[in-house]
């Protein structure tokens, strides 16, 4: 993995990882709001969201065309596109980038699908190393309980039904997530991911996340905004045609 994030790029990159139902997205969302409230420039990037690649992935999933290698390659394409068009430029400009899932998701899932680990490491050599990579560690039964409680059905690949572990989607999901969790354990060792105990309550976890992020914020660019209401007042305007969010965000 390239060392660019830490050494050359002025921005900061914080990412979250964990099995489905670990609560990582909630934590990232809270971090996002906290950083924005302090005026930091924050860019958010989600797994599987490249506008150019997404359609192919979607079709592949819907029509069950994806097998381990194509699953891996199309996700790598999506990730590469986001790195080059979204993540890297923001880091170069000095912004904070938050990513919900990163390369470790691919390492974990693809390895469970039988793809060579060393091939995956080389395939993804284009990625930028995160400033801090959080791993939200939750016991399997807890994660499965959270997902099962909130969802009537599971999607084919989400449940890992392509692995043929079980015909029952929820049983397959449980076995699939268990194996992914095993891979994450290995990745924590290999890449030094920062482990957060995701069985704690949400507020406590968020406090720990902020504590870990804080020391990395020195010297990061902030928006120096003249308060909108102040500006309006000075000009004697009401701002009635402005997007209401622009006024209230100050």
């Amino acid at each position: 993995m390239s060392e660019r994030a830490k050494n050359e790029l002025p921005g900061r990159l914080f990412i979250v990882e964990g099995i489905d139902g670990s609560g990582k997205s909630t934590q990232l969302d809270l971090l996002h709001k906290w950083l924005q409230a302090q005026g930091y420039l924050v860019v958010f990037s989600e797994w599987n969201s490249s506008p150019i690649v997404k359609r192919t992935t979607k079709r592949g999933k819907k029509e069950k065309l994806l097998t381990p290698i194509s699953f891996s390659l199309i996700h790598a394409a999506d990730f590469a596109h986001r790195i080059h068009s979204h993540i890297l430029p923001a880091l170069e400009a000095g912004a904070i980038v938050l990513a919900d899932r990163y390369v470790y998701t691919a390492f974990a899932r693809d390895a469970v699908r039988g793809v060579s680990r060393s091939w995956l490491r080389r395939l993804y050599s284009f990625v930028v190393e995160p400033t801090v990579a959080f791993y939200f560690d939750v016991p399997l039964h807890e994660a499965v309980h959270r997902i099962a409680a909130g969802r009537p059905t599971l999607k084919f690949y989400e449940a890992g039904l392509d692995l043929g572990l079980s015909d029952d989607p929820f049983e397959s999901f449980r076995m699939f997530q268990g194996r992914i969790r095993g891979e994450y354990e290995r990745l924590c060792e290999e890449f030094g991911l920062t482990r957060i105990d995701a069985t704690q309550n949400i507020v406590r976890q968020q406090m720990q996340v902020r504590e870990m992020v804080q020391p990395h914020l020195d010297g990061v660019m902030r928006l120096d905004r003249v308060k909108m209401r102040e500006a309006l007042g000075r000009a004697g305007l009401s701002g009635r045609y402005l997007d209401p969010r622009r006024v209230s965000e100050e």
Partner: protein
Amino acid sequence: MTDLRFYGDRPPGIDGQSLPGRLIVLEGTDGVGRSTQVALLKEWLERKGYAVIDTGLTRSSLAGSGIQRAKRGHTLDPITLNLFYATDMWDRLERQILPALRAGMVALVDRYIFSMIARAGVRGLSPEWLQGLYEFALIPDRTIYLDIDVEHLLPRVIHDTGFDYWESGRDFLETGSVYQSFVEYQNRLLAEFRRLADRHDFTVIDARGDVGATFEAVSREVEQVISSMVSDAMPPEPTNR
């Protein structure tokens, strides 16, 4: 028999040691006449009684249309584009080529991984990364490389299609006219192909001559690859009656 050998680790879900079909790859730069030769070969083979499938870049059901769409915008970085091509390649390998080889067919592939490696190499991607990426590919029984120089290529390209944006390297070469950048790009690409030809043991065929002369040379090579197929499939001769 085609040995089931890959450039790297065997991909998950692929079983067996050998396949009764043959994998024949045609490589060469755009405009050299590759697709013409593939079309002629297909007819020639079928006339001899061989079952043939032919496939080429971006013809996968999974990623073909996605690549076409992405290229229209001219916005993709070379890594993403190659991962897209690799997805397309693997999908065709798994769904078209391997099943055909299992069924004892001849698979004619119009541009395999080498075109992608050459084009990306010229655009500055690391050769190690590219070789690694395409490790999932099955090693062909024969790779026939149609060799040409820019001087002979030019009239064909002008006559057939004109100068294509990508095949003139306009996405990364900044100098000169379209013509100049075509010449520059093709010279670099041909050099890259020749490097690959050495490393991967291509059968190099001089494609500067006319269609007929090239086909004669190409079909002679293919003949060698398929000649053992009939005896492979024959039941053993009865020894006594």
